[in-house]
């Protein structure tokens, strides 16, 4: 007997996300036609941060591990590429491999200590590890220390250098789409279900026979590795490696993107990254004291919406369709039950 599934239906937020991806895919065309190369740079930044946010969402949203130090892995990606090219290794594949290896290693090491704690202590210990690496990089004067260092040469994939803006953009776009799709599969897979359920009730999962620690650690490591890739792209965008990439405010920005977009939703990090960066740019253009507006705006969104932008969309959709949903009713989405 195979029970019937609830009917599949594209939700509003999924449709909007697809529309957004299509718009993003057209940015290079626009940039070329309108002679606005800056638009491409901005959009690349959005894609890269969206990728990092997707990786953070995996542990923050689905696994319920509030990491306040995720910028660490962004920074590791940046510095692995930076240091390798400093020593004349600009082979992109090698850099990618090294980034993945380093992030996995650091993730496994710090994760296995951090995962012993939970709640606020977890928030703090992830922050502490990020700070430790921050200070470590600051003291490496050979690689620029606090001042950072210019990327000696862009990563090269065969004959293709990532310093080509359009190539970089393409790579970021493809990787983001892949990450989104991968995340969707992952969350509904056996592994994903275990990770989500461990967030809801870890003790019960143990009683069911799951060694939860290793599943959560694996999720943490996967997330670290994906974020490392974002770092690798980022250093090619800015052509510069700086310890400030792994400062705690960057971690805060990433959290803001995930939460404002909608935690534990597939599309949330994408909306979050796009929204945050665009609003920031727009406010900056308006006033020097943009943060006086930006800060309260964050507070306002947090208060008004429990599920971030995606939550607002779903609420609107529910009202429009006249079905129960939105805040108040328990949302199965967080369990990975959405858009099966």
């Amino acid at each position, binding site marked *: *007997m*195979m*029970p019937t*599934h*609830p009917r599949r239906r594209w939700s509003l937020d999924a449709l909007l996300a697809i529309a957004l991806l299509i718009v993003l895919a057209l940015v290079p065309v626009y940039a070329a036609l309108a002679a606005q190369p800056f638009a491409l740079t901005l959009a690349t930044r959005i894609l890269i941060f969206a990728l990092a946010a997707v990786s953070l969402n995996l542990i923050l949203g689905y696994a319920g591990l509030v990491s306040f130090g995720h910028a660490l892995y962004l920074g590791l990606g940046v510095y692995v590429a930076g240091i390798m090219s400093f020593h004349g290794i600009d082979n992109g594949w090698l850099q990618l491999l090294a980034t993945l290896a380093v992030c996995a290693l650091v993730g496994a090491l710090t994760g296995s200590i951090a995962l012993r704690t939970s709640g606020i202590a977890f928030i703090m210990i992830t922050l502490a590890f990020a700070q430790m690496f921050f200070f470590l990089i600051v003291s490496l004067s050979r690689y620029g220390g606090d001042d950072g260092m210019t990327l000696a040469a862009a990563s090269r994939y065969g004959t293709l250098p990532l310093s080509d803006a359009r190539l970089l953009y393409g790579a970021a776009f493809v990787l983001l789409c892949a990450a989104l799709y991968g995340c969707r*599969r*992952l969350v*509904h*897979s*056996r*592994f*994903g*279900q*275990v990770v*989500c*359920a461990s967030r*809801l*009730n870890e*003790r*019960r*999962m*143990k*009683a*069911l*026979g*799951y*060694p*939860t620690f290793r*599943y959560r650690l*694996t999720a943490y490591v996967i997330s670290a590795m994906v974020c490392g890739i974002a770092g690798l792209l980022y250093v090619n965008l800015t052509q510069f490696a700086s310890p400030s990439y792994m400062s705690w405010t960057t971690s805060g920005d990433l959290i803001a993107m995930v939460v404002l977009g909608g935690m534990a939703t597939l599309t949330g990090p994408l909306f979050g990254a796009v929204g945050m960066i665009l609003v920031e740019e727009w406010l900056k253009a308006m006033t020097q004291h943009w943060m006086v507006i930006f800060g309260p705006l964050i507070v306002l969104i947090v208060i008004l919406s429990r599920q971030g932008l995606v939550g607002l969309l779903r609420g609107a959709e529910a009202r429009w369709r006249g079905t129960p949903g939105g805040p108040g*009713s*328990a*949302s*199965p989405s*967080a*369990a990975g*039950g959405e858009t*099966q």
Partner: protein
Amino acid sequence: MAGAANLLSVRRLLKRYGGLVATDHFDLDVRPGELHAIIGPNGAGKSTLIAQLAGEIRPDGGSIHFDGRDITGMRVERRALLGLARSYQITSVFPEFTALQNVMLTAQAHQGHSFRFWTPTLRQPELVEPAAQALERVGLGSRLHTPVADLAHGEQRQLELAMVLAGKPRLLLLDEPMAGMSQSESRLMTDLLLSLKGQYGIVLVEHDMDAVFALADRITVLVYGRAIACGPIEEIRANPEVRNAYLGDEAMPS
């Protein structure tokens, strides 16, 4: 009485909280297929005992053997995979998951490791089917896709049982499964447990004496962490010490 024939045998189990001895050199044997009830006043140490059997609390002394194996120091998740399944006194499920997903988690736990990253679980019949069957068995067949948060208290208790069953357990540790149920539902649950009886070893902790007397093969009475009596129903009912310490008038045949 001891020996390999016992599914579970506990010897001189000891647990202290500061000055309080919650489990005091406690012995217990559960035969395969036996329903063994544990009763006793509040704070006697029943939940503490169950938690030690399940592996959530580490005893300070004594031994626990399951199916001839010493599991005294074994971790919770290993015990669960051996077939030791427990339910909680306070309902403990995954509120944001649907009923089906909850039960599928149990099934999944017993199908090897879960480092499988790609196929959606809802498209894996080897998970969905046993889960749906278990739900059917406890009477939740129509609630498969209801998020658990929307289930009533009693239904959540039923779900709790379905989760236990889906794991192909060999010994059930049930801590007050009737708690918070109305009489009719208690009766349903009693019937359900009756239908399971004989297939699994069951350790039942319960204050609902109607249920205990309807179900138990043997009863152990726990007072201040110590077993003061152990035997078949009639023997326990008749025991004046038990009546004094625990039953009061309720044990009178009605």
